[in-house]
C-alpha cells in the first residue's frame, strides 16, 4: 500500500484486519482489563463496591432533589436506569479520547493491534457496569419495579450499547491522538452532558428547549433503549432504529479511521 495512492478499499480492508486481529487477542484485553479494575481499587476496603456506592449516592441525590414536578411516573426508576447508562457511556467517551496517548508505551513497544486497547476499554466498562448495574437492579426492585419480559428487550438495548463502545473508542482515540485539543472539548461536553441529557428530566411539551435537547441528543436514544423497555413507558422502535444506525455508522467510521491512520498513530502519541 504505497502512501501516495490513498484508496478507500485498502483502508477499509486494513481496518477490518486490525479489528479482527484485536478480537483474536481477547486473552490479552480480558486479562489487562481485570488487572486495571483491580488496581484501581486495591488497598480499599470496599474495592469495586465503591462503584456501586457511587452510583447509589448519585441516583439517590437526583431522586431526592428533582422528584417534584418531574412529570414522570415512578421518577426513581426513571433516574435509576438513565443514570446507570449515562455514567458508563460518559465514562467510555472521556476515557476514549486519551486511550492511545495513555497506552503509548505499549503502542511503541509491542505489535499488538490498536483495536486491543478499544476492546480493553470496553471490557473495563463491562466490569464496572456490572457493579453499578447491581445497584440499578436493587434500586428498581426497591422502587417496586418487578422483572418483566420488557427486561429482555432492555438486555438487547444493553447489547447494542456494548457493541457500539469499541467503535466509538477507536474513533475518539484516533482523534485524540492527532488533535490533543479534542480531549478538552470532549471532557467539557461530557460535564455538560449530564444536564442536557434526559436523565433526571423529561420534555414536557413538544416545543420547549427540553424537547429539542431530548430529540437531538444521540445519548437520549441509548438511554431509552434500556429505560423504555424496563419502565414499559412507550414505543421503543424509534430509539432502537436510531441507535442501531449510529452503531453501524460508528463501526464503518472506526474501521476507516484505524485503517487509514494505524501506522501514523505510533508517531503522534
Amino acid at each position: 500500500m504505497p502512501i501516495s495512492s490513498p484508496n478507500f478499499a485498502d483502508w477499509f480492508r486494513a481496518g477490518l484486519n486490525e479489528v479482527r486481529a484485536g478480537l483474536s487477542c481477547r486473552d490479552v484485553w480480558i486479562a489487562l482489563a481485570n488487572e486495571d479494575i483491580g488496581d484501581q481499587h486495591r488497598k480499599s476496603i470496599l474495592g469495586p463496591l465503591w462503584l456501586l456506592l457511587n452510583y447509589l449516592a448519585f441516583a439517590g441525590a437526583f431522586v431526592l432533589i428533582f422528584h417534584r414536578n418531574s412529570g414522570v411516573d415512578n421518577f426513581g426508576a426513571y433516574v435509576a436506569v438513565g443514570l446507570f447508562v449515562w455514567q458508563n457511556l460518559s465514562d467510555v467517551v472521556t476515557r476514549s479520547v486519551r486511550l492511545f496517548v495513555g497506552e503509548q508505551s505499549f503502542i511503541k513497544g509491542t505489535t499488538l493491534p490498536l483495536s486491543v486497547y478499544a476492546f480493553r476499554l470496553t471490557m473495563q466498562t463491562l466490569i464496572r457496569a456490572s457493579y453499578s448495574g447491581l445497584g440499578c437492579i436493587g434500586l428498581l426492585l426497591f422502587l417496586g419495579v418487578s422483572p418483566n419480559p420488557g427486561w429482555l428487550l432492555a438486555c438487547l438495548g444493553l447489547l447494542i450499547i456494548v457493541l457500539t463502545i469499541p467503535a466509538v473508542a477507536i474513533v475518539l482515540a484516533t482523534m485524540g491522538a492527532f488533535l490533543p485539543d479534542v480531549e478538552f472539548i470532549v471532557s467539557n461536553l461530557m460535564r455538560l452532558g449530564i444536564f442536557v441529557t434526559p436523565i433526571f428530566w423529561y420534555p414536557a411539551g413538544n416545543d420547549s428547549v427540553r424537547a429539542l435537547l431530548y430529540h437531538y441528543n444521540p445519548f437520549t436514544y441509548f438511554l431509552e433503549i434500556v429505560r423504555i423497555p424496563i419502565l414499559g413507558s412507550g414505543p421503543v422502535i424509534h430509539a432502537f432504529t436510531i441507535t442501531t444506525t449510529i452503531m453501524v455508522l460508528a463501526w464503518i467510521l472506526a474501521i476507516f479511521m484505524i485503517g487509514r491512520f494505524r501506522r501514523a498513530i505510533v508517531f503522534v502519541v
Partner: protein
Amino acid sequence: MMTYLEAKDVSLIYRVAVPRFYVGLRDGQRARNERMRSGGVEALHNVSFRLEAGDRLGLVGHNGAGKTTLLKVLYGIYEPTGGEVVRNGRVDALFNINLGFRRNATGRRNIVLRGLINGWSPARIEARIDEIIAFSELGDFIDMPFGTYSQGMAARLAFSVATTLDPEILLMDEWIGAGDASFQKKASARIENLTKTAGIVVLASHNEKLIRRVCNKVLILSHGEVADYLPIAEWRPDDQPATGVGGRSAAG
C-alpha cells in the same frame, strides 16, 4: 518452509502527522508553511538485506544512525513508508523488557500477563512458567507483588520472561544487563544460547567484541543508510565513517 527475513528498499520518514490546519491554528501560519516545505526526517533510506536461517546480523553505527528504528521496523512496530519487510518465521524481540509489568500484581501473575502480551497462548505460558520462575531465582518472592521487588529482582524476572522463548527470528537491542554479577554470567550464557538456537538473529550493539562473538554479518548504518554490509571477517570497525562527515561513503 525456510526461515528468512528480508528488507527490500526499506525507508522510513518521520513526519509529524498532525493535520496542517491544526498546526496552523496551534503554532501559527509560519509553522504551517515550514511544515509544508519540509518533507519530514528520513530515518531510514533504502535499507536492503536478506537473512537466511543461520544468519546472525550485527547492526552497528553511531547513536542516531537508525539502529533501533530499523529493529522496530523489522519487528513491525513501525511500518516502513517505502519498501517492505518480509518476515518468514515467528519474530520475537528483546527490547524494552520491562514493558507491561504491573506493580500490584504478583511476579507469577506478571509472567502470565507478559506472556499474553508477547502473544503466547495460556497453554504455552502454563508450560513455561516453572522454568521462568526457576531461572529468575525469585523463590517464594514470586507470589509477592512486583512492586515489592528490588531493582535487581525485577530485572531478573523481566529478563527471565523475555528470554524464555524459542524464536525463529530474534531481534535484540544491545546486551541486556540484569541483576548481580553471578546472574549476569547466567544471563549472558542464556543469551548466547538463544542466539544459537534462533534461526536468525539481528543484534544492535556498540560492543565490537560481542558482535564478533555472535554475528557472521555486519550491517553498518550511517544516517539511516546502509554504509556497508559485509561478512564479519571483513569488518574493520575503524573504517566506519565518523559522525557527521562522509556519511554516505561506501555503499554496500
